[in-house]
């Protein structure tokens, strides 16, 4: 739960207010059967995805800087209701920050969601707090209350008060995020209610990656090992990811068992490597994987690289448009070949 004061607070209040209004009307006018949004969490630094079908419950919806879950995750596979033995898909309104909107658009491109049954309740997100980082930095002190005032995050405990600079303690992917609200997609404009932005990815220098990229392979490997060693192979990252909708994940497959499920380092690395491969050109940088990880592994470190690769190689940013094919779905004669070996 976040108590907000000052500018960001104002912002969120307005967002929350208009979002509730939209949600209320959608339900009232029977435009949707169901609203998926965020509700207040039972403990500090949390929020809880909430499913609402009654107008009166709309008031439980909240918006703050801890609403980290990517709600698109809940509509794959589509939510349905059996009406006389017919599986009828429900019309769903989804409270969508930029990345959620992008997920939905991309998932539609991959035939996973049918936008006819979706209303994107667009809201302009001002960043998700990196709770894992704050928890870690507080060490073993329990936070009882977290609030955001002006440009600071204030964490209160039984016997302490600590403040963090808001912009520094956002998820890495949020820091660089240029698409705060769902991108406006002309062909599907009717889908978006509430806020939206012109679908443009904006400029990104990926400066946060340069340090790692300048390292030697040995150092890079060390960093990665350090990053991933806590991994318990619980696959929370996968389950939280809207793009990981495979019926059977590669790591669960047998005949042949390509990659081990053990916590042996090369197994862990291979899992995250292949998973990265699989979300390349699809990842919308929502950071769900990171915030879901019980061990607090910051996977946005990897997803940021994915963003960079597809942006720089194929000038693609996922979830912005229906008309552009994702990079892995198409090919060009004149793609860059700088990575290939030649005689000279």
């Amino acid at each position, binding site marked *: 739960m976040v108590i907000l004061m000052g500018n960001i607070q104002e912002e969120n209040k307005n967002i929350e207010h208009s979002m509730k209004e939209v949600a209320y009307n959608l339900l009232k006018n029977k435009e949707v059967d169901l609203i998926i949004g965020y509700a207040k969490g039972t403990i500090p630094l949390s929020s809880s995805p909430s499913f609402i079908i009654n107008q009166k419950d709309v008031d439980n919806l909240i918006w703050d800087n801890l609403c980290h879950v990517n709600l698109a995750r809940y509509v794959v596979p589509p939510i349905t209701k059996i009406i006389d033995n017919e599986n009828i898909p429900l019309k769903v309104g989804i409270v969508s920050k930029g990345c959620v909107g992008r997920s939905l658009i991309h998932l539609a491109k991959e035939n996973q969601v049918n936008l006819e049954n979706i209303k994107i309740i667009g809201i302009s997100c001002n960043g998700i707090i990196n709770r894992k980082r704050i928890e870690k930095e507080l060490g073993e002190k329990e936070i009882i209350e977290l609030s955001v005032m002006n440009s600071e995050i204030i964490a209160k405990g039984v016997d302490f008060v600590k403040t963090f600079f808001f912009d520094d303690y956002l998820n890495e992917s949020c820091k660089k995020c240029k698409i705060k609200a769902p991108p406006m997609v002309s062909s599907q404009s009717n889908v978006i209610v509430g806020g939206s932005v012109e679908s443009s990815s904006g400029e990104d220098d990926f400066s946060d990656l340069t340090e790692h990229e300048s390292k030697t392979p040995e150092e890079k490997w060390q960093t990665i090992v350090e990053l991933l060693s806590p991994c318990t192979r619980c696959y929370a990252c996968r389950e939280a990811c809207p793009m990981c909708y*495979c*019926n059977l994940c*590669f790591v669960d497959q047998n005949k*042949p068992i390509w990659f081990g499920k053990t916590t042996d380092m090369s197994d862990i690395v291979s899992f995250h490597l292949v998973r990265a491969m*699989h979300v390349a050109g699809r990842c919308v940088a929502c950071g769900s994987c990171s915030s879901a990880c019980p061990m607090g592994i910051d996977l946005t470190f990897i997803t940021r690289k994915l963003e960079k690769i597809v942006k720089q190689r194929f000038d693609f940013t996922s979830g912005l448009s229906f008309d552009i*094919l994702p990079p*892995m*779905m198409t090919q060009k004669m004149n793609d860059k070949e700088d990575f290939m070996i030649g005689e000279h």
Partner: protein
Amino acid sequence: MKKVGSVLVVGAGIGGSQASLDLGDAGYKVYLVESTTSIGGVMAQLDKTFPTNDCAMCIVSPKLVETGRHQNVDLFINVEILDVKGEAGNFTVKILKKTLHVNVDKCTGCGICGRECPVEAIDIFNEGLARHSATSVKYPQAVPLVYAINRDYCIGCGICLGVCKAKAVEYGMEDEIMEINVGAIILAPGFDEYIPPEGNKYGYGKFKNVVTSIEFERILSASGPYSGKILRPSDGDVPEKVAFLQCIGSRDYRDGQPYCSSVCCMYTTKEAIIAKEHMNLLNPTIFSMDIRAYGKDFDKYIHRAQEEYGVRYIRSRISHLEEDPKTQDLIVTYEDETGIIAKEMYNLAVLSVGLNPPNDAVYLSEKFGVDLNEFNFVRTDIFNPVQTSRAGIFACGAFTSPKDIPETVTQASAAAGCVNQLLHDQRGTLITEKSLPPEIFVAGQPPRIGAFICHCGINIGGYVDVPEVTRYAGTLPNVVLADRNLYTCSADTQTIIKEKIKEYNLNRVIVASCTPRTHEPLFQETIREAGLNRYLFQMANIRDQCSWVHMHEPEEATRKAKDLIRMAVNSAREIQPLERIRLSVTPKVLVIGGGISGMVAARNLAFQEFETYLIEKGSVLGGHARNIYTTLEGGNVQEYLSNLINEINSNKLIHVYTQAKIENIEGYIGNFKTSIIHGEKKEKVKFKHGVVIVATGADEYEPTEFLYGKDDRIIKQSEFEKLINTTDDIRKKKSVVMIQCVGSRNTEHPYCSRMCCAEAIKNAIKTKELNPETEVIILYRDIRTYGFKELYYRKAREAGIFFIRFDETKPPEVRVEKDNLKIIVENPKIGKISIDSDMIVLSVGIVANGVENEEMGKMLKVPLNEDNFYLEAHVKLRPVEFATEGIFLAGLSHCPKSIEDSISQANAAVSRACTILSKDEIEAEGKVACIDITRCSGCGMCVENCAYNAIELILDRRFGLVASINQVLCKGCGACSGNCRCSAIDILGFTGEQIYEMITGRVE
């Protein structure tokens, strides 16, 4: 006399091979005879091909291999035609099989003889730039891979006899004469390049650094004499300045040939580009009169050469060449188009030599009794360029006139198409389906692997410790037999393999020898004959990729051989028997477009008793040809057209629908369903068919420039043609000015419309004939009268028609003055001039109907190029079909072309279609994609990645949206599987498990 269902194809270049494959696939017995010792012709000599820069060997060798082992094609090399008797439908041909002194059946092409042979002979394949031994194969990838002893050089030392473990060398072997009985003959002897004679003004033969273009082609080739490095013959230096001299022996009345060789401008440009690619510091310059880039996407290619590669084109005439005796550089003296004489120094000069008729043209014409034209090319029918003067004998490729590869391939198929028309009732009478034992059921049984390891004489045995490797193979899990043979591919070993399969009841076989690319089919056949499914086979390449490349490291080579065999065994353990899906074929055809192409196709098909639906969007048949009265060569188009239309309308098997529109086409090769609406009343018709031929044609460009439409004295070429053919108004005209390239070769239509030059010259000549007083002036950018059309260009000039060139950047200007028209044009040589005229004729280009083609393309799932013409499956080797199987292409909708070419293409499309229609069932390849729908989540990536439209998303009752693979359309490339995240798609024969086993089966 009774017709026979067999065909003789003379010459096994790309043309001959294509014709043989078409006919073989259509169920005819084919005798393919080749005068040299291996097939492939000139194309196999090329490094790259224009305008795509495809690697020639990459694209041609699979075709050659296929030809070499096609069960309906008998290939005879090193033969001579002795005598031809009989008539269309039944010829008797006597053939001389000249001895190779090597037993073709025994020779394994291992090449040991060649390596040991002490005498050197000139390597003809490498244009004498390299040498090889008297015992030789034409080129490394030669088909058939058989060595031959050249007795002119052979000193009879007998070394080869000694070293040949296969006992294939037979000095005493005699020539042999055989007689074959065929229903039709196709002549595809190709061409011979023009060799500048003694004392030619280019110093070829005198100066070391003057080479012909075909020699240069070999120099460029990675497998050529300098292995891809560009060096000049005199001193092996890198030539920085290279001059290409055009029209050597072409368009040359004095010491060459008067006609245009059609391909030089393009192949020179290609050579210049490739040369630049190989060595960037090199500066190519091309000296030419016109640039004749009249083909599909050719102009774009020239443009790229200039823009991207900085190739320099100089419009000029060469006076002569001198050599600098010190540096052996060459001084080129030329006159440029402004009339200035200039000299320039070059390190290397390439003569773009023309195409001459084959040296034995006269001999062939006598033997086969077919007429030649004045240049000794075969004379063909004015409307059917593959029909020789003798019924039942057809010709294709450069023998009919100089042409490039796609046109040769098209003509080859066209000739095959005509053969189909002639012999359709004999189809399948002479081919033999060989009877095979029922397949042994092996599914679920533990693998029992037999490994056969080949010594290949000393080719493997000499470097790899075969006994040790065999012992090792025996120790591998599931291997119940490890055996070694001197030549595993030899006939006797095949019997041994069959016996062993029975004896040890093997259910998997691996052979460790040479490359599967050439030998897999042989062994697969063998195990199939022993009752094993042909896919229960795996090969380890321990020769080409092991012993031959590690000749100095026997231990390492042996170790590697073990690894490769272990990997093969591991993979073999996972192989499952595969079956080839069979699909019935509806022997009916949908032809879209009622122009000449469409009608010719329909007529041919109907003649072969295939029911044909011919649909035309307009209200009458005839298409573009209705505006054309004669061809440049004098053919009466209107007469031809009306006869054709009558035939179509009177044929019961052809259903003609005019004012027709396709509503929907569904299905795939062999089984299409189409619904159309047609006629005034918009009646609906539905029908099934097995193939589609797209012949939707193209439109005439509607000009807006040069005041067209503002003044009725400014008309289109077609309107002018009508005028001179139907009225005699021309007699009143004092002067007619024709402007070329209207709506062609500009930014809007960046391609050449190909026929405008010929049309203009045709009508200009006709004008002069009607009224010699009329002054005719043609304003042009390049005159592109390729091939024999060049003669009419000369004729026109002799008839006093003026040709004035203008530059693209300085187009003529047209003014309407009270009583006459004024044209101001600037010519590089004579400068600005103004012409008064009382008629302006605009030679307008051909444009594709973007909207309609787009729509049709979507419906058929076939692509268009940037200019909205249809894009064929492969620019070089599959010019009349689409990547989507069962859909073919003919006529103007492919690209601008002449009536004769359209007719050829139509017959070609028919021939290709016959390879499908002639079968009751088509068989899919076994190694195709298969899908596990329980894993598929229907993301659609595979659908996008598939180049053959073999995958579509379907709604499964239990698993929702999932991909479904049409295994008939699938080519098994695996692009789908490579990207599939949930591994729902796997490629049979190359399954993930097999590859996994190979990866994990390495040696520590």
